[in-house]
């Protein structure tokens, strides 16, 4: 729990519950992410991680509970408003804008003050400043050399980094990464994990979902574990990985009692 004397958390989730039909996808989960933290949201398949991410991003409306971004209640905010308020989002399955160059993909996000409403947007033309900012971000994630390429011609590794750069261009209070390493080979995954670590070191608050537990353990400071829609552990990575409930959730009941 947050200490009242501590600064306001970047992201706070209070008592979220989501039900699809009769199935309880998320069962009253609360957590907070402090500024500058790097949190891994982990759990076995079907634990409710993706649903939780969608609740935070505004794609799924919870039956109960609140999401606070930098202390602001996000209730009634749709995805685009949340993005402009400071939520950077990347997709597990990459979704580049196919008809824009990599640079313009990021420049569009960097110009989110220009696109905030159609009335503002129609009045401004120059993309110079946003393209310059985008170039810096592409350099930061290591794909500046292909800035003018067509995303349809780029390999997955580049597009995964594009997702991160585009989310960063929103100048996010919190960066939400949905399986940033999925689909990459070990070398690529390791390098992107390093990039994420550097971003965090430069002050970006990050929450990520990841199946690649080895890399996640290496870079995250804290793990938050969901299982069957419930939060079963939350704390420093090493402590969480030694937690009985977490081991049972991943490896099954038999593990503890089995002979070594």
């Amino acid at each position, binding site marked *: 729990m947050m200490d009242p004397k501590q600064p306001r958390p970047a992201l706070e989730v209070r008592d979220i519950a989501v039900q699809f039909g009769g199935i309880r996808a998320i069962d009253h989960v609360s957590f907070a992410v402090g500024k500058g933290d790097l949190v891994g949201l982990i759990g076995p398949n079907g634990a409710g991680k993706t649903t939780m991410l969608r609740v935070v991003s505004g794609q799924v409306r919870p039956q109960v509970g609140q999401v606070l971004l930098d202390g602001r209640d996000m209730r009634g905010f749709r995805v*685009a408003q949340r993005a402009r308020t400071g939520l950077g989002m990347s997709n597990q399955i990459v*979704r580049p804008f196919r008809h824009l160059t990599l640079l313009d993909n990021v420049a569009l996000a960097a*110009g989110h003050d220009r*696109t905030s409403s159609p009335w*503002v*947007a129609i009045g401004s033309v120059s993309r110079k400043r946003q393209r310059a900012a985008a170039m810096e971000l592409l350099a930061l994630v290591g794909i500046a050399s292909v800035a003018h390429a067509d995303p349809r011609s780029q390999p997955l590794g580049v597009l995964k980094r594009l997702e991160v750069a585009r989310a960063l261009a*929103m100048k996010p209070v919190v960066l939400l990464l949905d399986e940033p390493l999925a689909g990459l080979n070990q070398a690529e995954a390791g390098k992107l994990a390093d990039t994420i670590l550097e971003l965090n070191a430069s002050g970006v608050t990050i929450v990520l979902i990841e199946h690649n537990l080895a890399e996640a353990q290496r870079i995250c400071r804290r793990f938050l574990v969901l299982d069957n829609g419930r939060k079963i552990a939350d704390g420093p990575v090493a402590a969480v990985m030694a937690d009985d409930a977490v081991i049972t959730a991943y490896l099954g009941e038999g593990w503890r009692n089995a002979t070594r």
Partner: protein
Amino acid sequence: MSAYVLSIVSLVGINIILALGLHLISGLCGQVSLGHAAFYGVGAYTTALLAKAGYPIGLTLPAAMAAAAVAGFVVGLCSLRVREDFLAIATMAAGFIFLGVVKQNEALGGEIGISGIAMPSFGRDGFVALELGVTVLVILFCLHVRRSWLGFGFSAVADDDVAAQMVGVDNRAYKLTAFCIGTALAGLAGGFLAYYLRGVSPDAFGFTASISVLCMVVLGGMQSIAGCIIATTILTLMPEVLRFADNYKLLIFGALLFLTMRFLPDGLGGLFALARRKEAGPS
């Protein structure tokens, strides 16, 4: 210029305004509409009724744009609930409903329509000059939209409307804006058509008309304004040039739609882009 040439040129102008309206909605913003002719019709009928009541062209045309934009806003609101092919069907439905209402409504002239609209006081030549002037303004406006951040946002929504929201583009506001501007242009074109034909009849605004406009936009390439203008000019002139082939006009339209999409999905605009890349040399 002879009266015949003037008449053809003004028809080309009207069709360019109409097609650019659909280009904004379907090309730039990616929302395929099969009911564009309905908004053309709303503009034409609004103009016809007001002109018959004695209002001047300076008032009837803005009213036509406003009426069409309101209709476009409503259909746009509906379109927010559905996606892609559902949207195409919803807009098609809107087209049929417009036609059904007009045909059953005696105040709108029923099956026959409204005739006897007077030329504006400045005469035929003045009208053609006004119409062509407005066409040029519309072209400039569309070029500006494309270059502006609005066009930037439209292309994001067209490509992937979920990702667009993630970069802060409110896809609903953008789609509604595209519908309003695009249908207002259709209304404007309809207003000019009412004066041009000196009357309106429901047949001009049916499903075939919607398909013809779509054909212009598609042949031009969903991404290219220049392509759209050229395709519209060709398709408007074609029936005049191919007088002898009048019997096959619709067959040629169908074949063009089919062949373009089957073999050249980026249309004339795609062809230009390809040529430019070739000129620039292999790289």
